[in-house]
């Protein structure tokens, strides 16, 4: 087991709040004060208003041992609360036997997440950058036409945070909504089994800031993609196991809170299009939490409840982001040769292009309909690269389109329904969250030498010559950017 502060991670033990845990995560909770210096006295979450919602949603991992290529490992998760927030400790292991979809090994990583009980959505008059004015994707367009296999130095869109998160806004029907960017790389939340959630893009390689979902087979008759493939629950390994997506069945829990399905059982009958369009029979449960305090739910949304509280209408969540292609970001004469195929209907990858230089996949995605502001699900030739730049968020005329059985989500992949606001898992961009509706000021913990900032790079202190957080993939800070990042 991974060495944690010189000690050994043990198995067994339980907290009193009803979520059985291993002692490893219980002991990790003793470090909450170090991770979050403003945390208060910790106690059983059932005694704190708002605490049970978080604690009761977590997966019961008691007794679960997973196989990591012949080595037994024990995932753990534990939670305690202060007056304002839940603190969830995890060793970031999946709750099922490790599926190596890339050569990256599965290792334990210690995380402590903070979930505030009272989300604080941004006021509409909060100073923010109009999302419509952000045009960093023109850089991606130029780079792709110049050198398609070489990524821009950073994620170029400007829609996710490369360093400190900034606020962006949309104005719809005269109402301005303000959101906080999620980091382009690294943790944006966590799933209920404890591994971190990442945003909807990969790093600069192998597909430049590519879409993690476009390597999925469309169904069992399709090939698995060649890039940074996810397992069929939505996760894969890098420095830590993390999830870019969440398949509902993988995170369903039984009455004890334990996983309801095995990996093989949860992923049977893989069919992306059906999963996006099949009618929902009941609302999904919680699959994760965002650092702004809102839950991340599965893909079935309760959109209406009766006076008795019963859900009277359930719809499938559909992202407000549709595939719009990289080509919309420029008018270069060479575009037709480089990007001409994008968005065209297809059956297999070979319909889009072939060979080692092919950067397109025939994938099930959401695309705008030719008329109106609605969307449809279909197989299209999609550029795997530059996930943020190939999708476009459009405010739909109707959040609940008449005659349809889906509900459109907002820019952040959220919906304000009878149960309040929540994010919902989708099988298309942005998969889990595209931004944060509420403030997440405590996102970055002050851990000093051992800590990590939201971009996964060492945190800086004044006077250091390395560190900071510019999300340059593949290496820590440089002298060039450090001065700007470190005051």
């Amino acid at each position, binding site marked *: 087991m991974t060495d944690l502060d010189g000690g050994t991670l043990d198995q067994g033990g339980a907290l009193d709040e009803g979520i059985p845990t291993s002692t490893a995560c219980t002991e990790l909770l003793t470090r909450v004060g170090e991770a979050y210096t403003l945390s208060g006295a910790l106690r059983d979450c059932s005694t704190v208003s708002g605490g049970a919602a978080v604690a009761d949603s977590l997966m019961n991992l008691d007794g679960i041992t997973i196989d990591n290529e012949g080595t037994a490992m024990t995932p753990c998760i534990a939670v305690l609360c202060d007056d304002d927030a839940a603190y969830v400790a995890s060793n970031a292991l999946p709750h099922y036997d490790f599926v190596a979809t*890339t*050569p990256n090994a599965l290792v334990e990583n210690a995380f402590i997440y*903070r979930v505030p009980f009272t989300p604080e959505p941004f006021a509409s008059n909060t100073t923010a950058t109009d999302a419509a004015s952000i045009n960093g994707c023109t850089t991606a367009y130029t780079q792709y036409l110049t050198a398609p296999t070489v990524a821009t130095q950073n994620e170029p869109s400007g829609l996710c945070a490369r360093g400190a998160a900034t606020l962006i806004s949309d104005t719809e029907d005269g109402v301005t909504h303000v959101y906080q960017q999620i980091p382009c790389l690294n943790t944006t939340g966590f799933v209920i089994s404890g591994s971190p959630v990442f945003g909807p893009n990969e790093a600069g390689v192998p597909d430049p800031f590519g879409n993690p979902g476009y390597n999925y087979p469309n169904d069992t008759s399709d090939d*698995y993609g060649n890039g*940074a493939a996810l397992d069929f629950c939505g996760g894969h390994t890098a420095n830590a196991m993390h999830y870019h997506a969440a398949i509902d069945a993988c995170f369903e829990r039984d009455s004890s809170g334990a996983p309801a399905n095995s*990996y093989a059982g949860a992923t049977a009958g893989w069919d992306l299009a059906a999963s996006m369009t099949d009618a929902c029979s009941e609302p999904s449960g919680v699959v994760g939490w965002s650092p702004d305090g809102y839950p991340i739910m599965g893909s079935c949304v309760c959109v209406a409840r009766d006076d008795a509280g019963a859900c009277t209408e359930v719809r499938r969540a559909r992202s407000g982001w549709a595939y719009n292609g990289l080509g919309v970001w420029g008018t270069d004469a060479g575009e037709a040769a480089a990007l001409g195929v994008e968005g065209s209907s297809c059956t297999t990858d070979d319909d889009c292009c072939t060979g080692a230089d092919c950067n397109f996949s025939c994938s099930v995605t959401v695309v705008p309909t030719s008329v109106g502001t609605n969307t449809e699900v279909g197989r299209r030739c999609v550029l795997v690269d530059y996930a943020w730049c190939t999708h476009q968020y459009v405010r739909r005329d109707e959040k609940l389109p008449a005659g349809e059985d889906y509900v459109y989500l907002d820019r952040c992949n959220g919906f304000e329904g009878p149960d309040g606001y929540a994010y919902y898992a989708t099988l298309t961009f942005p998969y889990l969250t595209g931004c944060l509706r509420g403030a997440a000021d405590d996102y970055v913990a002050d851990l000093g030498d051992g800590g990590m900032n939201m971009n996964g790079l060492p945190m800086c202190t004044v006077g250091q010559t390395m560190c900071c957080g510019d999300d340059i993939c593949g290496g820590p800070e440089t002298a060039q950017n450090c001065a700007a990042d470190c005051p």
Partner: protein
Amino acid sequence: MSQLRVGTRRWRFGVALAALLGISCVHDEEAHQHGGTPVTLVGDGGRVRYLVGWSWEGATWDPAAAGYRFVSDEGVEVLLTGLWVGLGALELVPCEPDDESAAVAWLRHVVLPARASADHVWVSDGTLVEQPMALDALAGRLVEFGGGTTTLGSQYCELYQRATVIQEGVSPDLRQQSLRATGTYRLPGEGAPTEFDVDVDLPVGSNDTLAHDELGAGLPDVTDVVATYAGVKLFDGVNPDELSERELAYELLRNAIASGTVGARFP
């Protein structure tokens, strides 16, 4: 949110220096689990040929039943009359330093080629070969996988293997399946054996440490990387009666790929 990474960023100068010089990659513990002497394959632009096959050491061929008989580590008696596995991809994995500080990571990033697990995802350096094929495990042949590859400068310590679904029309043995297995099993204390014919359509992967292949050199000017899967480990840790057919097939697939040992035969 925060991530505690205590204990993972200690400065270890010796390891760091070795990493910078490209002479690290001794995975004694893991390699010894597979019974071989770990080796580093120096990527100098040479040719590499991937060979894959099955070992039935510890099993007995039953000609009357036309299958292999063996007993799992938990006492399950197995007669295996058919086993087909879809192998989709092989890729040499560059060596990883055992531990490193941020400073070492930065220096390595600047000085050395991208390594397997560089930050968010691995960086394929061209040794990836994808040519899905259905391996007939009972055929007993060592077969070449793909058309070989060329190393590009990294120091390699492992082989990544990915089983995948074999598409319709590629093989008569697997059709939109990554594994199909047939035969019988009998749990300890049970009377009559239970027949099984199971399949699954999920991919799995595995890394295995490169070890020196005792059989010696293969072709001149070509390094053979030989992945050998152990048939007798197929049912290890598996209680078939507790699993659905799909789950059983998935566990067999996981065991099959994880049983691989990887030998390097240098010219």
